[in-house]
């Protein structure tokens, strides 16, 4: 296995008086796609936010590319090359679609080829290019959130439930997009409830429950092992598409 790009060891996170993460350990190998699964309230979002520095880990260590980023400020974490798609999408509703993307490309104008590729993936963004992003439909906002994260090449993408609200046809385009990104060497950590999408993309899988990692391994294993699915996720996953 490749050298891990991101590594969490013994990460605890508190939000106010609540203890949410109870010692999270995992590592993300470079240039692969890792899926983070778990039931509602398991702590997936909290994990991503902690990596991004939006919540401070109260103990433990987060290393990115060999560097300790546990106490680094969010902008610096982002500048180190981590892109983030939050669960809430966090679209800037006042700004136009264009302006949202302009801001996302921090180091300068978006490369034209990349822009064409993005707009090809999500034609709706092109249509609403100059209108306030607040007017977009739920799924279109989701597209914009993803487009923002991939407006520039990043070393690691943290993506929180990208397929929620997307029509099946869009889910397909997105899977293609992630494949292309992976091929270009980007590393992705994906939180996903849609097991169909997850299994189509994932190289590795991590399962969380109650703020702890309860399983990690190769995706293939998981797909094949029904009892593992039953035990970890409470359901046989192919019941749902």
């Amino acid at each position, binding site marked *: 296995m490749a050298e891990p790009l991101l590594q969490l060891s013994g990460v605890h996170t508190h939000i106010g008086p609540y203890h949410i993460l109870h010692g999270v350990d995992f590592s993300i190998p470079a240039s692969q796609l890792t899926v983070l699964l778990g039931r509602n309230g398991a702590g997936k979002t909290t994990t991503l936010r902690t990596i991004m520095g939006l919540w401070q880990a109260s103990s433990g260590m987060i290393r990115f590319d060999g560097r300790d980023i546990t106490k680094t400020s969010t902008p610096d974490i982002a500048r180190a090359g981590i892109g983030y798609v939050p669960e809430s999408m966090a679209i800037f509703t006042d700004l136009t679609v264009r302006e949202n993307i302009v801001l996302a490309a921090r180091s300068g104008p978006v490369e034209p080829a990349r822009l064409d590729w993005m707009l090809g993936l999500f034609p709706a963004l092109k249509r609403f290019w100059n209108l306030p992003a607040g007017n977009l439909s739920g*799924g279109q906002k989701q597209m914009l959130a993803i487009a923002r994260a991939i407006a520039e090449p990043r070393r690691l993408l943290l993506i929180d439930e990208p397929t929620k609200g997307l029509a*099946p*046809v*869009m889910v397909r385009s997105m899977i293609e997009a992630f494949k292309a990104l992976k091929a270009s060497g980007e590393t992705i950590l994906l939180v996903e*409830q849609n097991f169909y999408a997850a299994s189509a993309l994932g190289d590795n899988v991590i399962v969380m429950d109650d703020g702890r990692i309860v399983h990690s391994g190769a995706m293939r294993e998981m797909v094949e092992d029904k009892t593992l699915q039953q035990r970890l996720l409470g359901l046989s996953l192919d019941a749902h598409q």
Partner: protein
Amino acid sequence: MTAATATPALETRGLTIRFGGHVAVNDVSCRFTPGTLTAIVGPNGAGKTTYFNLISGQLRASSGQVLVEGEDITSLAPSARAKRGLGRAFQLTNLFPDLTALENVRLAVQSRAEAGWSLLKIWNSRRDLIEKAEHILERVRLSDKRHIAPKALSHGDQRKLEVALLLAMEPKVFMFDEPTAGMSVDEVPTVLELIQDIKQRGDATVLLVEHKMDVVRSLADRIVVLHNGALVADGNPAEVIASPVVQEAYLGVEVAHG
């Protein structure tokens, strides 16, 4: 077309809304009869949520009418429509972020009980309302989180609360906008059961927007397809799903033309 004889619970006639040059909902006429569950599907941006907004009054139609049990309600405010029995859950979670989950539901129960205007009663003296709210939380499996405010709930739990509010309103017409989006696989069946229950009661009309085709298949009596704001297909589930327009524009499956 089925059950066209009875007065529909809800009907839209030529409903249209324009935003500048963009027609988000285009001349949609449709009737919804009590006791049926209609799934509304369509690609992102097809106009599903906008259609709901027009029905429940969050947006004003550019033209067309909305009728509840034969009565024109197009000019009413959202609150008045809710009183007429139109209930609505939102696609993007829309709750009272700092009140507890229980209080969120109680507010919906209270609206149903028309108790909002009592100024001199003590709110805690209405045990009946509290019990009802507790019961609903139980049904969506949020009882243990009833004292947590939505802003501290995980996304999936917020979705469940959103559903709970709709249940608490006990409307005649239920409008679900992607209720299971972001819910984990083991929670989805709970919600499906709830919707099934409503349907089974027989007199409720359910409109369901959902992108999970398995959910649609297992629940819907009828599917309506919106595309670019227009109603492009309407019929029983198997046929509609098999139609080229759905296969191509929605599911993204290549279909040979001809």
